[in-house]
């Protein structure tokens, strides 16, 4: 969702609930048989992540590979503890470094390997006589690696998490936290837009009067008139502000809307000090952007760019020193006011985009004042505010009620259609997958066991685990005597089973399953499975 123009809120502000989807009762269309030619945005190869704990080495991910293509929704399914969330965090290195560690693997994004440099950062020393392994990390290198990967977070790869009530900082208002993301990644555009705004007062006055007249007409007219006001002021966020002022005027019945709007416009004038503050901010953001591109080129080329880093660092330091006077308490408030207001209204626009009914109130509020569903919408708007190429969602609806769940999923779908973001959706709920995903990867005990399109997976599950999962879904239309389940329990990842990790619970286990890990083989168009029951051609990386 671009912050430059507001998404036209054609849909009404009231959310109509959609009924909860029940598994397999909705028809899933079979996709076209042609192979997928969309470009790959994320290529994960052989991701291995271990956690080094007191009790031993938890082998959480053992060679996970998948590709994500532009615009597709890939679902990652599995039981609790199978490593789905760990996969997502490993891609962007959000694993808490002691005790976890991405041991090896490649994650290609925009031509850069996000995991470059893994081998140099840590050494592993097994402790004799125990299951423990001591990890010696190079603090400096790990920190540098975090900064590198940080350059793609937010605007390249965005993430939303499971518990929305815990995911936001409780002491900062919503608009503050939303604005942070906007400024960090789109700061230059925001400031350019702000500096280009000229409150052309007569034009604004005329548009404001039109707005006042439209208040009595209808919502759509109000919106159109507010948009016109924004155009008159050369600042679209001012249009948003005008719209909400109009709404306020309608509910409170005041008559001097035009004067208010004009007055607000006249306050928009940017003084000299404010302008120089803004120029400095813009320069800082520019340097940040250049640093991000340096990091990306480091990851692309596979070497450390000391010269460029140093140059940019020095520039930034000089700039910061020059700007120290702007940090004094009295001056800071006054000088940053235009930027803060602009950020506030852009945040309101972002909240409109996720269909929040009263965005001004929400933006001013704090996280503890909102419900889980609202917070998750806010998180989505934060994630999508900068048009990321990939959105990774870790069980986004698990903590929410079923009706809200449907709304959130519908929202994600719509936004994906509008912007074209690829989504990696992690969940344990097969119904959600059926509703939203294009392709599915099934994970068990840290490995992907089957990967197929949604239709293929549900109609022709190949791997015994997938079959077991699908069989265990209770079906309303076929009352049976008892609930099916998969015998046994999830393996201990410190001592995982040898060979295929599913073999202890598999009804079709063969001797070879205990000895070797089955390779991923192709069993139909776009349908891969890792099982010795099938012997198709191995998947080519």
């Amino acid at each position, binding site marked *: 969702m671009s912050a430059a123009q507001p998404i036209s809120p054609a849909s009404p502000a009231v959310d109509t609930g959609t009924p909860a989807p029940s598994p397999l009762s909705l028809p899933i269309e079979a996709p076209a048989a042609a192979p997928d030619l969309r470009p790959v945005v994320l290529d994960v190869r052989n991701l291995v992540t271990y956690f080094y704990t*007191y009790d031993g080495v938890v082998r959480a991910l053992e060679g996970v590979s998948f590709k994500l293509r532009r615009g597709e929704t890939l679902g990652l399914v599995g039981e609790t503890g199978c490593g789905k969330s760990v996969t997502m965090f490993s891609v962007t290195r959000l694993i808490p470094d*002691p*005790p976890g560690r991405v041991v090896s693997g490649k994650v290609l994004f925009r031509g850069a390997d996000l995991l470059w440099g893994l081998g140099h950062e840590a050494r592993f020393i097994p402790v004799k006589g125990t299951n423990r392994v001591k990890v010696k990390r190079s603090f400096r290198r790990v920190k540098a690696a975090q900064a590198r990967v940080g350059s793609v977070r937010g605007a390249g790869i965005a993430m939303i998490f499971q518990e929305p009530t815990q995911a936001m900082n409780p002491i900062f208002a919503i608009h503050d936290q939303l604005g942070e993301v906007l400024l960090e990644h789109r700061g230059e555009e925001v400031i350019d837009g702000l500096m280009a705004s000229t409150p052309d007062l007569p034009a604004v006055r005329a548009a404001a009067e039109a707005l006042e007249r439209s208040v009595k007409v209808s919502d759509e007219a109000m919106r159109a008139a507010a948009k016109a006001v924004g155009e008159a002021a050369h600042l679209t966020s001012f249009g948003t502000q005008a719209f909400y002022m109009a709404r306020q005027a309608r509910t409170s019945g005041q008559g001097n809307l035009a004067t208010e709007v004009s007055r607000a416009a006249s306050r928009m004038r940017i003084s000299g000090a404010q302008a120089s503050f803004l120029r400095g901010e813009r320069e800082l953001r520019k340097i940040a952007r250049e640093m991000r591109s340096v990091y990306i080129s480091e990851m692309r080329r596979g070497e450390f760019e000391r010269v460029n880093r140093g140059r940019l660092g020095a520039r930034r330091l000089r700039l910061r020193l020059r700007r120290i006077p702007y940090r004094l308490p009295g001056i800071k408030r006054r000088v940053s006011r235009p930027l803060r207001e602009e950020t506030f209204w852009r945040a309101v626009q972002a909240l409109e985009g996720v269909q929040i009914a009263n965005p001004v109130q929400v933006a001013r509020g704090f996280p503890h004042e909102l419900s889980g569903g609202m917070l998750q919408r806010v998180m989505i708007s934060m994630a999508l505010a900068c048009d990321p190429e990939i959105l990774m969602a870790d069980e986004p609806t698990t903590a929410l009620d079923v009706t809200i769940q449907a709304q959130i999923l519908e929202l994600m779908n719509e936004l994906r259609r509008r912007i074209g973001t690829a989504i990696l959706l992690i969940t344990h709920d097969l119904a959600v997958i059926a509703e939203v995903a294009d392709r599915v990867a099934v994970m068990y005990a840290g490995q992907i066991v089957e990967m197929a399109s949604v239709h293929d997976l549900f109609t022709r599950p190949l791997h015994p685990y997938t079959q077991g999962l699908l069989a265990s879904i209770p079906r309303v239309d076929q009352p049976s005597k008892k609930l099916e389940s998969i015998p046994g329990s999830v393996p201990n990842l410190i001592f995982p089973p040898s060979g295929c990790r599913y073999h202890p619970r598999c009804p079709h286990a063969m001797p070879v399953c205990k000895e070797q890990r089955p390779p991923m083989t192709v069993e139909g168009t776009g349908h891969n499975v890792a099982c010795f029951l099938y012997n198709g051609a191995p998947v080519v990386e």
Partner: protein
Amino acid sequence: MAARYAQYKRTWYFLRRNTLAMVGLAIIILFAAAFVYGLTYPASSSTPVQYCASNGPVPVSPDNPCYDAPYIVCTYPSGTVSPGPGCYQTPPDNPNFIAPTFTLAHGLGAFPFGSLVYPSADLSTSDPLFYNTYTMLEKGTVNSVGLSVLIVATGAGVGLLLGALSGYFGGWIDEIVMRITDIFLSIPAILLVIAVIIVGKSSGLRSFDETLVLIGIAFVVVWWPFYARIVRSQSLVVREQRYVEAAKASGASNGRIIVKHVVPNSVYPVFVQMSLDVGTIPLLLAAITFIGFVLFPYPLIPEWGSVAAAGASILTAVFTECGVKGAVCAVPWWQVAFPGLAIFFFSLSVNFLADGLRDALDPRLRR
């Protein structure tokens, strides 16, 4: 049972990896050995030993009265507790000089011990016993460490009881106990302790034993609120747990739940706090003596803080009057230094151990 043992083993593993905590543990074991030894160690003989920091002329400025004395000696007129600075004559040879088992003196060569002329409080005989510094340290270990441990244990016990009750039952019991802890936490510790002791002494409790009991009561009164607070917050958490609900559903009485569930779960932070506090008691006693409040009447007993502070209280005045070298002459610096060091190392090692324990027991540190 096995799970609890495994948890102890795990805690011990983390503690072992923490060098500071191990150093602290080693020193505490030394102190514990001194404690046991000190219980049986007799005070030295009945003749006061009078020595000073060095034998021979000490280079002080000519206007210092100690300048020309052949032996720099410091003795204290009998009947005083903190003597004024001055120089006196005394014969140098005395058979009751250094306790031969104290190897520190030997190792440091010409670093002899002075003596203290604080008669002991051995009221069973009419013959007062005197201490030299080594004996004082031995006996002082018993008194200081013993007092600290007793006070902390009692305070923790009272706090545990009240905190568990208040947190578990909630309601008006909780409100009352919380208000009471608020009250006691608002009064600064040292002031309340002194107030209680003063009131006790004015009402006639002047003898040695009674003074000790007064000190104990005063400290317990001051300390239990900390523990009560800790235990209360823990019991608030435990109260909401499912296993408590299950226990209630299966008919366990409230008392049983408190004893079996609430108390064991709050023991860890209480334990950490206890180990921290054990190191603080001698410091507070020292502060009380330093500001001039005479804790133990004449006869005095060896207790690190009181002895060190009694000497230190004239130290500052003497420094400014005589300068450092004059002070070495006129003030029993060893009386300040050695007990002060003992307090320092005791408190330090206890703190090391407590900090290591806290880190080892902390579930948030993601092991």
